[in-house]
């Protein structure tokens, strides 16, 4: 399978390692102690639909954020995490 990265083109899946769901990440974890959120924190469990995910690209040692449909395995976007989060932050302040 090829992963279509915005900056480095199509790369084989074997170069990547899955790194968790996007909203499981540190920033959203702090109050995740009550039960349902906690469970989500312990590995998502969001069946179907397009979801944000972290992917580590081994050769470039760079984190990517991809939005992917788990059923079809197709990416909507896959871009460097830094750019993706920067845009999200911008959007958040607007």
């Amino acid at each position, binding site marked *: *399978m*090829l992963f279509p990265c915005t900056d480095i083109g*199509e790369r084989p899946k074997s170069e990547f*390692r899955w*790194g968790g769901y996007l909203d499981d*990440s*540190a*920033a959203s*974890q*702090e*109050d*995740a*102690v009550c039960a349902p959120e*906690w469970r989500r*924190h*312990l590995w998502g469990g969001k069946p179907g639909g397009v979801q944000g995910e*972290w992917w*580590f690209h081994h050769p470039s*040692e*760079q*984190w990517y954020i991809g939005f992917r449909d788990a059923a079809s*395995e197709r990416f909507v976007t896959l871009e460097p*995490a*830094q750019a993706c*989060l*920067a845009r999200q*932050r911008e959007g958040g302040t607007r």
Partner: protein
Amino acid sequence: MSPKRLFRLPEPWGSRLDRATPVAFHFDGRPVSGFAGDTLASAILADPRHGDFLARSFKYHRPRGPLLANGMDANQYVTLDGTPNVAADGTRARDGAQVRSQNVAGSLARDRGALLGTLARFLPAGFYYDTFFRPAGSWPFWERIIRRVAGLGRLDPTLDAFGPEEPEPEKHHLFSDVAVIGAGVAGLSAALGAAREGREVILIERDEALGGRSAFARLSPAQRRDLAALIAQVERHPAITVLTSTTCAAWFEGNLLTAHARERYYHVRARHVIAAVGSVEQPLVLRNNDLPGIFLASSVNRLMAGYALCPGRRCVVQTANRFGYETALALAEAGCTVLAVLDMRAQPVDAALEAQCAALGIAVLHGLSVVEAHRAGQHLGAVSARSLDANGHPTGPVTRWRCDTLVCSVGFTPLVQLACHSGGEAIYDTALSALRITRSPRNSSVCGSLNGIYDFDAVCQDGQRAADVACGKPASLRPEPAREPVNFPWTVFPHRKGKEFVDFDEDQTIGDIETAVQAGFGHMELMKRFTTTGMGPSQGRTTALNALRVFAGASGQDLAHLRMTTQRPPFEPEPFANLAVDTSPPQRRGALDRWHRENGAVMMPAGAWLRPAHYGGEGDEEGSVEREVRAVRARAGLFDASTHGGFQLAGRDALALLNAAYVQDFSDLACGATRAGLMVDELGAVIDDCVACRLDADRLYLVTSSAAAAATNRTLRKLIVEHGFDVTVCELQGAMSVLNLCGPQARAIIAALWPAHAGELDALALHGFCQCTLEGIPAIVLRGDFVGETTFEFHVGSGFALTLWNRLLAAGAPFAIRPFGVLAQRVLRLEKAHFIIGQDTDHATGPDDIGKGAAVAMDKPYFLGRSAIAKLRTKAAPAKALRPFCLDASQRQAPEECRLLEGPGGVIGRVTSAAYSPTLGRVVGLALLDDPAAAAGTVRLWGAQAAGAKVRFLDHAPYDPAGERQA
């Protein structure tokens, strides 16, 4: 042995043969002579010293002649030079080969296993589910017997991986605009069409030459010229890479094709894939349809035209399309007597072909089918035919022909497997009575017989159309060629005495499928599993169509709604050896690896690395570890700690990064100071530790554990982007080497070696560090404490490691310095009760469990695992405890690590590390206790005798509890 039927034809038959070059080898110990270009099978079958078949079937050990004759089915499997399950009809004969028949008890001609055929009534599909298990536990007994009967070839575990003739395979990665699978007329046209549009094309063909079925077919002179021209143009075209004798095994997501040649494994990545894989002819299902002497027309064409092998002398041809007539004419030209052409179709369709037959005196009979084959010895002796009614049922009287050959051409199944791997769908097209691909995968097209197109010119056109699609041109520019109905809808003729084989690999008959349906297996997938139909080496290629028809009949389901069972890779069995190329896990070695091995080190694996266990050579592990420990305690030792993870962090948020990654608070870490860190995962379990050295305002040097270095690298980088930290990370494992000088004489050695730096280094406090350049070697020098003696850790670029190592050894020589290995280091650290993450902790051990709870800075707003630790601290259960212990001096034998410990109330925890301490004269260790309170009572190794060693827990390190040695 029955008289030989197969024989060699003179030239010009045999386009594949080089008759000037003989080839000699052995089959079952007896000589075979053939020609260069022969397959193993064609040479054996043509040799009058051998019989008409070279394999026996899987279950009933029935003799089996060539079915597809192209290496695609299990009926021609032999053992070649010790390698089992080699397709004799797909492997070139070579001088000196030792070929053996397989799955026979006794000899190929007289196989005791054939007795099973007479018991077939007792062995219907799935018989083993209802028997062999009483009395309870008797299955293993029967299984041993069944396993011996099952299986095809015999694999000798003492043989080398590769025979003397076999080079190790290699892997090639190829990329192209267009990949075409199959170099028949469709594939050749498609490849040429795409290349002419300026595309780079890779053409993959499993046969050794181009042309596909047409290379052996009866073509018109014009078609013959066209084919030759097509082949020549493809071979000459600079944009087309042709891979022959290369089987495409699978078509994965993203248009990745994997393909196998004898010594090569290909990964082919293409923007567009054109499947032009063609089709295989399907057998008739009737009693004794597997007898040697019964052939498919396409196989006869191949054997005669390619290998000059004539199937017999008295032939009946059963057909339902033009191909049967063509083969009948070829047989007549070869000098065979063609007794009759039986055409299942009620009315004449191919007038010209019928006229040619008539001209040669061949009788053509319409509306007739062979419904039973009769044996003569181990071979076909006669066939019985009857008329067919409008629904394909036999009616009326039986006509019988004595013959030695029956040639059938009643339909084809396109090789839909590859297209299905990649998401295509195969349906049963009732108009064609055939399987057909309806939905092609993305960025791909199919052409030729996959579309139901068989006519030479129409196939050329369809290949062109596929090329147009591949090149982004509208396919509608060319007319869609007409589909040709080559399949007869009724090919199944049950017989009350059975033996009508649907699956030749697995010996499954009509009755077996009916048995499955009666037992309630009313779904194709369940029927397949119950009967194993389609599960043999040919994976349903010659089975799927007839199995669907038989199943539809038995279950009363409509063929149009049935789907063939899921097709899974590979298309054809693929060699393990090819798959394994370049996939051994890498072995990492440090910069000093060679020195260690040249100086008596016994190396031990540690994750991806090899490290010196000790330096005493083989044989005296205990003695050398003791000598190394004593050297460190009494004088000096030198340790290669180069597998440590190392990171350089630079940027103004470097401390903030540490605060996010580790449980401790690093906010006030001063320049020039160090601090230890502990990393936990999202469940609060300890996963790594570190020592952070603040080099200056914006730079940190981080030393982490060896095993977790890769994971820590990912974690740090993720935290940086998540939090938007201004830090860059440089991972240094292997790039930096770490040399630890330890022992009471360490200071003296440094003073002797670098008088200029002695003061600075001498002044370092425990856990302090400095940066200096030692005789041209830039270094970070740390005062560590792991082994409990004065320790200087030299962190240097790996290029300097050997120089520094030798200098330290030379300067230490007057103090009898010794290099020491991992085993001695473990003893030394145990004497000091230092834990190792992953050994003394596990996936459920948090900071609170190892006495590090106080280091956790819960007042930080965030760090990795903070919420888990908060959660764990609300639990009522007490934390575990990691406690040092020792045994009585009388016990010299250390308990195995991970032995359980038993207190008065039961098991209370386990030993995580233990070793005999030569320094203390007793066994010391660490134990992780689930129930720390129980440590107060009498604790022994669990399961040991009552007299077993009592474990004495300590509140301090067993050695130098006050840490005076490190002052």
